[in-house]
């Protein structure tokens, strides 16, 4: 089995399961209860929050645990917009964001907000100058992803943050779901006010994630209720999920320190092998996130290739799993300006630190064979 769909979701670390199991069995109290079961749970929650903040390089009270990336993005975008609309009602984002950002912004448009969806250049990267130019005196929020989930392109969030740092009226949110554990991003003094992380993309569990909320940032809550997590996120904390998330964060951070070059090598090998196959077009430019490579095989339906590979126990995807059900066309590739035959025939290969060179070799050969066989069938 070759699993190259790590940007859709990852296999949880065994240690993550152990953490989940242990907490589920031993710490079942509600952290809001004031008896010993609750206090034990609360202490563990604080410890997890503290560890997450250290791994993230921020302060403990700046970590809010969520049910995942979608909630983190919604909480940040809707939360800032609704809490600060008296200062202005303009939001800047890009055309290549994850649906949870794009759709959250569209929903705000129906409430009277104005949203600028910035284009990207032919490499799939938003231009710093475009961001700067889009800012008006009404702008209250800029939301830009760090690593694009379909292309793997790295967006200039550090430069944008530096600029926005000088404009305290504007909040800056970064969707770091695909970048965390792969491409380091410093929260300290970089002008980032909010940052989303998802557990299941870093070998943690589904239903877990966190939002970094810089101290002093006022958010309108997405969920109302018991006022858990400093009033930012009501609902009984999923303690076993939270502890397992922090475990995944620690393990992926360690792995990234020792295996970052290795992942780059895998990417280079994959790129070189696919480049040698004439019918494959590579859509991701060089030197981007090492775990994602986007290609097109014009003339072939991506699902057909995915199924044929699936029969060989090889798993890749078309584009974002969150939009897999819509039309074949990739909105991200379209935004980059690729021709129609490429935007409807895109495949995403996404790696983890645990993939091997042998898997890459086998994958490249299999892909080539699969396409050749399909071309015979299609005659």
């Amino acid at each position, binding site marked *: 089995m070759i699993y190259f769909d790590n940007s859709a979701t990852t296999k949880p670390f065994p240690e993550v399961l152990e953490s989940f199991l242990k907490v589920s069995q031993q710490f079942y109290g509600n952290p809001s209860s004031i008896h010993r079961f609750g206090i034990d749970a609360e202490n563990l929650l604080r410890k997890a929050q503290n560890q997450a903040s250290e791994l993230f390089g921020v302060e403990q009270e700046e970590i809010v645990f969520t049910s995942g990336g*979608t909630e983190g993005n919604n909480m940040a975008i809707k939360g800032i917009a609704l809490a600060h609309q008296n200062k202005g009602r303009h939001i800047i984002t890009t055309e290549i964001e994850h649906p949870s950002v794009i759709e959250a912004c569209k929903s705000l448009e129906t409430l009277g907000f104005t949203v600028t969806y910035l284009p990207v250049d032919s490499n799939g990267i938003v231009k710093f100058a475009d961001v700067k130019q889009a800012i008006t005196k009404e702008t209250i929020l800029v939301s830009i992803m760090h690593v694009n989930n379909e292309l793997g392109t790295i967006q200039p969030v550090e430069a944008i943050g530096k600029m926005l740092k000088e404009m305290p009226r504007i909040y800056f949110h970064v969707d770091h779901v695909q970048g965390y554990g792969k491409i380091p991003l410093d929260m300290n003094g970089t002008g980032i006010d909010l940052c989303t992380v998802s557990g299941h993309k870093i070998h943690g569990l589904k239903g877990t994630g966190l939002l970094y909320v810089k101290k002093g940032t006022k958010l309108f809550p997405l969920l109302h209720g018991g006022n858990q997590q400093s009033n930012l996120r009501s609902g*009984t904390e999923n303690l076993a999920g939270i502890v397992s998330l922090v475990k995944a964060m620690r393990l992926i951070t360690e792995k990234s320190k020792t295996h970052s070059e290795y992942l780059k090598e895998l990417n280079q090998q994959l790129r070189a092998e696919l480049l040698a196959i004439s019918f494959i077009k590579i859509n991701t430019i060089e030197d981007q996130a090492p775990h994602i490579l986007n290609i097109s095989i014009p003339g072939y339906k991506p699902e057909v290739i995915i199924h044929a590979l699936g029969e060989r126990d090889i798993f890749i995807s078309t584009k974002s799993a969150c939009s897999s059900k819509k039309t074949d066309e990739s909105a991200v590739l379209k935004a980059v300006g690729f021709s129609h035959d490429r935007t409807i025939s895109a495949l995403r290969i996404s790696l983890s630190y645990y993939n091997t060179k042998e898997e890459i070799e086998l994958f490249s050969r299999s892909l080539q064979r699969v396409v050749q066989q399909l071309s015979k069938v299609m005659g």
Partner: protein
Amino acid sequence: MDAIYLDHAATSPVHPDVIEAMLPVMKQTFGNPSSIHQYGRKARQLLDQARSVAASSIHANEKNIIFTSGGTEADNIALLGTAWANKSKGNHIITTVIEHHATLRTAESLEKQGFEVTYLPVQQSGQVSVKDLRDALTDQTILVSVMMVNNETGVKQPIQEIGELLIDHQAYFHTDAVQAYGICDLDVNVLNVDLLTVSSHKVNGPKGVGFLYIRDGVQINTIQFGGEQERKRRPGTENVANIVGFKKAIELIAGEKDQRLRKYQSYKQTFLETLKELNLDFAINGEEEQLVPTIVNISFPGTNVESLLMNFDLAGIAVSSGSACTAGSIEPSHVLSEMFGSEDERTVNSIRFSFGLANNEKQIIEAATKVGAIVNRLAS
């Protein structure tokens, strides 16, 4: 000394079978249900099976079930979603003063945004009155939200009667069934509810998952935006393992329901009888006939809730003064204040005991004996 957990209404221990059902999913079926390859499809199958089990448990169709991150999220979707989607039909919402904070705070938030909210009072019995509801209904009412069982007192609310009353009214009927699920018989068609909230961690399932039932034809907005998961009503990669764990919990409570409820009812009786044998001065808050077997809220005259909680905890008895969800604070119970008036001493001398999986008969007698001793000491 092992502490005795009598706070199952706050949260309940995860059943070992639930954990056992979840681990293989995490290890082997870790795919994203939206992925079109085999890993995705297998995860999707698990999701579909769980949805079917969840639906059957309330006699609903599986397409009317959406999985959420828990009860709070489900209540928020039910209230915010229907309020905004039906604003053209009216801007009046009816709920009650005894709801869980997930409902109350959401209703308050809607009030700030221009909706008119009526909070029905509660009687001394702990029940809201159907007549009060009938009087509060107007042609502007778009939503009625009444919990099925109150989380602090355990008193059942007249959901079926309210459902009947609303059959010919435009207002949607939402019930927060978090405390009722697994205890009361729930049939959405008998109850005539349009929306119904359930949480997993109150029924020995994992935390971080719940579901919302939404009847066909209900106009409802989403509160989060993104992918097209959960029939476009709740985006985000589905928490497959937790949902499978939740499914297991649902199967467990259905499988042994009568036996389990008899057991909890006998715990409660044993507990109360033991207190009586100790000649303790106490009173049950709320109409005893209307209580679920698992919860009893007791007032101990001459005591104070803070010292009760502290002493119980020191003696190894974990209980609560009300909802756990007031984030660690000991405030007078809003439910008891509404039942008896905020000046009544029962609001500051009452404790909720809730029974469940973590208990056995011996513990109950031990707990009641200790409670009796502490109360006698504090009240004298």
